[in-house]
């Protein structure tokens, strides 16, 4: 057990090192910060922003029902952040295995006394840590804005929203990692992951299109539904279970596909 943990740690550290040494990762982070910062400012201060709307309401004399601005803002912003992450996450996961295959380093991992699971877990933790790191400045933005807000922002909503973002990222990255393990083309991995994410994203629409019990069942698989629940501060253990299931599924399929790759490689 200790050996497995130390292996996971070794893979994790190497993976992190790769991200922090890679100009590509910084480019992704920069785009993410630029766009999320832009959304943040537009939603809050823009011409149609929340503050302007509140001001117009106040001028018109409407005070009922009272509006919880931080709450409103957070759910809108987190939803946008989720969509943005959906574009960026496939780019983070695309190289996880395809690069190793292309460079032949998978042969090193596969001939080392490390299980496929340990490699997959280490890699997922590494890329997830990188994602969490690039969301930290956004938490900083929120802290600045909410420190001045009245009524004060609910800490629970803030926490749940970000937990939701991380869980969704973990689910997307895990599935993306599996797709990356199927091909040695990084671009193909990104495209396929993106397609899968779109599918999971619009499961809601598909579900309501089908309707009935089947539709409802499919609807539960939707990433966006569970994520927006969490971002609105609604804690539902089924959301946690769903995200955890996606993560586990991704890890399981990755480990299996690397094993199968060994068996059929010519």
């Amino acid at each position, binding site marked *: 057990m200790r*050996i497995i943990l*130390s*292996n996971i*740690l*070794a*893979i994790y*550290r*190497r993976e992190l*090192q*790769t991200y922090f*040494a*890679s100009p590509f990762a910084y480019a992704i982070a920069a785009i993410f910060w630029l766009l999320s910062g832009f959304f943040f400012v537009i939603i809050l201060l823009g011409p149609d922003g929340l503050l302007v709307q509140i001001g117009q309401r106040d001028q018109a004399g409407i005070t009922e029902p009272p509006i919880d601005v931080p709450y409103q803002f957070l759910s809108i912003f987190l939803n946008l952040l989720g969509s943005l992450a959906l574009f960026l996450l496939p780019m983070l996961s695309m190289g996880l295995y395809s690069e190793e295959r292309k*460079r*032949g*380093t*998978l*042969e*090193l*991992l*596969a*001939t*080392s*006394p*490390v*299980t496929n699971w340990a490699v997959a877990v280490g890699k997922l933790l590494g890329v997830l840590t990188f994602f969490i790191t690039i969301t930290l400045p956004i938490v900083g933005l929120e802290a600045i804005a909410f420190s001045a807000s009245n009524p004060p922002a609910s800490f629970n909503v803030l926490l749940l929203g970000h937990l939701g973002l991380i869980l969704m990222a973990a689910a997307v990255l895990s599935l993306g990692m599996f797709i990356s393990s199927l091909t040695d083309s990084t671009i193909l991995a990104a495209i396929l992951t993106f397609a899968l994410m779109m599918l999971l994203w619009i499961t809601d629409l598909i579900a309501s299109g089908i309707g009935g019990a089947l539709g409802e069942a499919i609807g539960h698989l939707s990433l966006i539904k569970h994520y927006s629940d969490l971002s609105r501060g609604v804690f539902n253990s089924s959301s946690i279970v769903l995200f955890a299931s996606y993560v586990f599924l991704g890890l399981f399929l990755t480990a299996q596909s690397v094993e199968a790759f*060994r*068996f059929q*490689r*010519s």
Partner: protein
Amino acid sequence: MIEVEHLSKTYGATPAIADITFSVEKGEILGFLGPNGAGKTTTMRILTGYLPATSGTARVAGFDVHENSLAVRQRIGYLPETPPLYTEMTVEGFLYFVARIKGVAAGDRAARVQTAITRCNLIEKRHTLIRKLSKGFRQRVGLAQAIVHDPPVIILDEPTVGLDPRQIIDVRNLIKSLAGDHTIILSTHILPEVSMTCSRVAIINKGRVVATNTPDRLMEELTGGNGYELEVEGDFAAVQERLQNLAGVKSVEAILSDPAKPNAADPLPEHHFKIRLVSQPGADEGRAIAATVVGAGLGLFEMRRTAVTLEDVFLELTMEDASADPDTPDANDADLPEPTNTQQIPEPATGGEAA
């Protein structure tokens, strides 16, 4: 240390290796010699647990490579054909990573990495990013990663490919210095490499081991020593069988039969053939050969004794590849006069430099 029994591997319907059996004793260096695509890499991949065999067993240090894969992987250092390198890491950082995933205890890591770096002559490059290293240095980092955890068994897939002559000598010396404590299998298609580094050779062709022995014994047993090279004019086919039936002749083949071949250094006139005869051990049938050729009404233009090299063994054992690659003997012949030429030229040249 390594026992391989009846190992076979097929990709779909194509057999990559078929019924391979060999064993390597502790401390030996076994050279895997074979043309490209003979199954060397496949065999090595099976030994390292990277590929499963279709049938047969392979055991490393007493552990079955399939059943006990993790135990085997712990005891093996492996350098694949392309060195598996994380190019964004420094040499030292990469070796630390490999030491970690190979299960080197935390306390030993610094010493092991240091040893590997020293052995592979990487000291001045230890803090360099692998991305910035030349091919030769990358190959050495690949070697260092194979020995960093001090494994009892080291498997090297074409370790000297792409290196300059100086580096090749370094790598060969390194490999030789590893023998004794380590059991080594290396694959190559460079013939001198085998006689220089290996204590035993396994010649592998079309997925089968066609011979195993020490390099010297292989030459002795398989070809006996002498042979002749002839240039004759006339119908080669008519005389081939008669030559073949002479006492002491082991094999007869035309090595250069097409005078129109553009890559022949010295094109033969029409109806001329170059023939290579390989003798049985201890036989010297020169007189009979000449008599047979002349007696058959063919013209004999050249006849000379050839010393047998490992190359001949190899060519004989992998006959079809020999005919596909007729340059090899000629290239050697062409090399010979060159040193004499260059020796003559440098004298005035060095004189000029001195002045």
